[in-house]
């Protein structure tokens, strides 16, 4: 049991120490971004990885949080933090309304439905003046107090996101070890079989969807507070869902730390390749980025974390064999 906690503890130590080892403002911001996307990707993981329902329109929940946060400031002069619970409520409501008719659709149809919902809402927001239409909503440009969560340094964001990520992962962990997690695994394996054994499949999937929506909206709210601005493209654009999905898939969907690994690879990759190549205007950033994603998809579709796990297991195997031999008292050389 203690052995199993070594890796998470080590990870936590690394994450806590990161902003002090990589201490320039840009590096700290990069770290904060990795954590932010890890929150979003881990939230997606609940329904996309564990429940096996690939939602490509998850950005709609992200947008709920972002718009609620900015709306609280833009329309009521309140701290964006007050908008956060409103965003959660909106996200969960949408998940419930959309989830009931949509979750019973199989694989590809479900994904298409989520795309349609996300695009529909994005278009509605683009044409709604109250929500900023195409211009978007801005947050406080000069923070009035600490609750405006508008900091110059990335350090407070980093630790705030770390706490939220820890909560997200803890909730995911708790869920997978609960009855709900048990049902989800059964449903993911074979929904029909699970149903015939009495699993309330529709309800379970809906709960997973709603939980995922709530957490994703938190990520959206945090994003809006850090950047101080949201518009239909940056808050409800399909590209955001695809990015989150890819991070989870690249790191390892259905694994607790998969999305974090994916975010830790893709976010710096994108920002650093942009910093090195972006200014030239030849689009090379995305050629590199695309090529790397293709290679990983082709050769490691289970995700990087699966690869790491396999490597670790392989190293552990000879040791296990050695211990076995010693235990049985064998005398010949290994």
């Amino acid at each position, binding site marked *: 049991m203690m052995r199993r906690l070594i890796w998470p503890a080590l990870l936590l130590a690394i994450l806590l120490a990161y902003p002090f080892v990589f201490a320039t403002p840009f590096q700290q911001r990069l770290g904060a971004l990795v954590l932010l996307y890890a929150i979003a990707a881990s939230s997606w993981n609940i329904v996309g990885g564990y429940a096996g329902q690939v939602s490509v329109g998850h950005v709609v929940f992200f947008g709920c949080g972002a718009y609620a946060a900015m709306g609280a400031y833009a329309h009521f002069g309140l701290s964006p933090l007050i908008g956060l619970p409103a965003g959660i409520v909106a996200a969960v409501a949408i998940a419930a309304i959309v989830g009931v008719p*949509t979750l019973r659709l199989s694989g590809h149809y479900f994904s*298409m439905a989520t795309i349609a919902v996300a695009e529909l809402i994005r278009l509605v927001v683009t044409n709604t003046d109250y929500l900023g239409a195409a211009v978007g909503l801005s947050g406080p440009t000069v923070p009035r107090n600490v609750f405006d969560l508008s900091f110059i340094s990335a350090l407070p964001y980093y630790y705030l996101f770390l706490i939220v990520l820890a909560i997200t992962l803890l909730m995911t962990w708790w869920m997978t070890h609960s009855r709900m997690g048990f049902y989800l695994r059964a449903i993911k394996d074979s929904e029909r079989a699970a149903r015939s054994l009495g699993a309330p499949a529709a309800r379970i999937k809906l709960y997973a969807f709603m939980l995922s929506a709530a957490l994703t909206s938190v990520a959206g709210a945090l994003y809006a507070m850090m950047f101080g601005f949201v518009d239909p493209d940056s808050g409800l654009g399909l590209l955001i869902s695809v990015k989150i999905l890819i991070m989870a898939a690249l790191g390892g969907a259905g694994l607790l730390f998969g999305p974090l690994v994916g975010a830790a690879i893709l976010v710096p990759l994108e920002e650093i390749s942009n910093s090195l190549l972006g200014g030239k205007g030849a689009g090379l950033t995305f*050629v590199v980025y695309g090529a790397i994603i293709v290679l990983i998809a082709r050769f490691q579709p289970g995700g990087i974390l699966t690869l790491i796990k396999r490597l670790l297991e392989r190293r552990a195997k000879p040791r296990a064999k050695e211990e076995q031999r010693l235990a049985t008292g064998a005398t010949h050389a290994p």
Partner: protein
Amino acid sequence: MSFILVQVIVGGLLLGAVYALFSSGLTLVWGMMNIVNFAHGDFVMLGMYAAFVVFTLFGVGPLAGVPFATLLLAALGVVVYFALIRGIMKGPMLAQILGTFGLALLLRYSVFWWFGADFLSLPQNIVGGTLVFWGLRIEAARLLAGIVALVVTLGLHLLLTRTALGSKMLAVAEDATAAQLMGIRPDTMQAIAWAIAAGATGLAGALIATFFYIVPTVGETLGIVAFVTVSLGGFGSVPGALVAGLLIGVIESLSGYLIGAVYKDIVVYALFLSFLWFRPQGLMGKT
């Protein structure tokens, strides 16, 4: 019915035929191989650029541009199949999304790197002019694309249902192991299917280039349209893609005229969602 309304509907049908044209390739691979191809829009884009290159080098229009684009894209389809698709086909949908999205970026920005970001277009008179039938004004380029869409749809449908090759492809799609036992090589069939689909998409791109703008990022918008068309029509149904495309085109055109263009996509998505909820297999898909 007011005359302008007729013009709107006709315009919608032509637009829809174009949608059907570049979606037929997607429904083929989606239905046959269960592949979600996020790079589909970028295949259309490549077809457009192929037509542009032919025009720039030889000064010829779609007569040469279309066959060239079709063959080029078919070849690319085979390459992509063996290099990437075969590996991710059997994998989870996530791996397919991951892989094809990466491919989309790779294709899009390789074209961007080579051709630059500027908007290109073929000269207006390449398939020139506007034809007037009983007062209805129809752009010749769009009419050509519309007619070709019908021909391609018919051709693909006949290929799948009436030819030996087609039944082999369908057999592999239905049950690859059983097909193998009957002496059909699944790999070859799937590569052929992919080549045909890519070729059809390249053809579509080359035709669209005669009246639409050419830019590396055009694949983003067109990709989503293709996805909606294919889901509405039913994954794997080529006639379904045609009907769905026409329907979407007309709805877009009508709502654009009656309600306002900014709402047309909302109407389409709302209708699409209702359809998904009441008839998920689409207009003509299998249950």
